[in-house]
């Protein structure tokens, strides 16, 4: 697996103060694979996701995305800011609270990465940004500011912003948790399309039905360890571990995805 995997995480450890949030985590994501991370809050799943693009710097272990590998722990030097920035440019991230830049229009938000980070000419960046906005169904909202968009639209702009950097992998940190229920579908739809196009994705989510439908692998975490992992449908339909069963009992596991809100 390690030859074909896009993301490889080995013996990852992270503590915040005396609180050990990740204890010896190993994770592989195949090229084009979609992995869903589920678990109760405080299980460490968001921290694990943030370790993949090093928004959180691990205390030990190693992280590899594509051909770039970083090792952490005693005797290793922390990567400098330039190396980190270059690495992060190849991984897209979508946040729970969108984190759109409020002083920029939707178009400017999407152009920002290509223009500032990749030094792309404005005209080319605008063309790219408009194409990405069209892809998430928001071409006609290009000139609006985030404050005038609905939650679902904001999150789709945020996805377009991440995609404009043409990343190798996309990380989703509870991308639909802050949305009104009727707006969840339009965002999940964009994510599902992305998965079907072969994007490598790691998704922290509470949408179990979505994970079952879209993810090919599922990882259940609790208290900083991986409790159970396997093919998404198998883990959700027939969990082996009691802890997984207990957690999943809080959710409707099957059924159709929430309908996409076509009127955007």
């Amino acid at each position: 697996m390690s030859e074909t995997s896009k993301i490889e995480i080995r013996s990852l450890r992270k503590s915040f103060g005396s609180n050990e949030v990740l204890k010896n985590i190993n994770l592989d994501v195949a090229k084009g694979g979609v992995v869903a991370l589920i678990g109760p809050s405080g299980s460490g799943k968001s921290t694990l996701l943030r370790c993949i693009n090093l928004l959180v710097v691990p205390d030990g272990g190693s992280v590899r995305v594509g051909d770039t590998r970083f090792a952490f722990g005693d005797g290793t030097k922390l990567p400098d800011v330039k190396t980190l920035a270059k690495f992060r440019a190849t991984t897209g991230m979508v946040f729970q609270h969108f984190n759109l830049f409020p002083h920029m229009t939707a178009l400017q938000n999407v152009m920002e990465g290509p223009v500032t980070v990749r030094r792309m000419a404005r005209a080319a960046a605008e063309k790219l940004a408009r194409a990405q906005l069209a892809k998430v169904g928001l071409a006609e909202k290009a000139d609006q500011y985030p404050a005038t968009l609905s939650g679902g639209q904001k999150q789709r702009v945020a996805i377009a912003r991440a995609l404009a950097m043409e990343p190798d992998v996309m990380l989703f940190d509870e991308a639909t948790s802050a949305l009104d229920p009727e707006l969840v579908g339009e965002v999940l739809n964009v994510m599902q399309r992305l998965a079907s196009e072969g994007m490598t994705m790691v998704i922290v989510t509470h949408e179990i039905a979505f994970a079952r439908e879209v993810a090919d692998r599922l990882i259940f975490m609790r208290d900083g360890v991986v409790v159970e992992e396997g093919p998404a449908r198998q883990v959700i339909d027939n969990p082996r571990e009691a802890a997984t069963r207990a957690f999943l009992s809080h959710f409707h596991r099957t059924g159709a995805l929430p309908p996409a809100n076509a009127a955007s």
Partner: protein
Amino acid sequence: MYQWDFGILWSYRWLFLNGLGVTVGFTVVIVLLGLVFGLFGAFGSLSRFKPVRLLALSFIEAFRCTPILVQLIWFYYALPILAGIEMTPITASALALSLYGGSFYSEIIRGGIISIDKGQSEAGAALGMTPGQSMRRIVLPQAIKRMIPALMNQSIIQFKNTSLVSVLAVPDLVYQSQVAAHDSYRPLETYTAVALAYAAILIPLTIIVRRGEKRLAVSE
């Protein structure tokens, strides 16, 4: 009952105008210089390097927590003795007032920067920006908007603080009015006129600041 006679001040009009010119010019200098000190103080206190942080915080607290009148006198009388640095009254008071104002500007600028949601710089970092790029492109444009009303307020205070330079015989409006008051034996009229002159300049400015605050509140 006191007999007011403001007419007597007319003969001192050029003295007053001169003083007013010095006061306004002085304010411009100490506001601009203060903002430069404020920028250094703010970014220093947010630095990743502890010695830089300590240096910036000592500067801020030293000037914020001592009276400006004491600082003025200290800069003019103590520095030459302690460090052998001789300064004209104008240089000493410009420096002291700029550093004093700068310590307050530092806190305003620092507060503006840290008031921006951490998610903003995280989103910048996730796109592949260096900390500098995300500061320039993402954080500062939003922070400056929030700082402007407080910076304007502090500058208004700085305008009034210039009145203290008269203790070092810098010929500002207050110093010149002391001259006029001694000469005319009309201190009540003189100082009333001076108070009105300060208010006449500051009241329109405060109205502008308040309007700006309202506009910013709408666009947030």
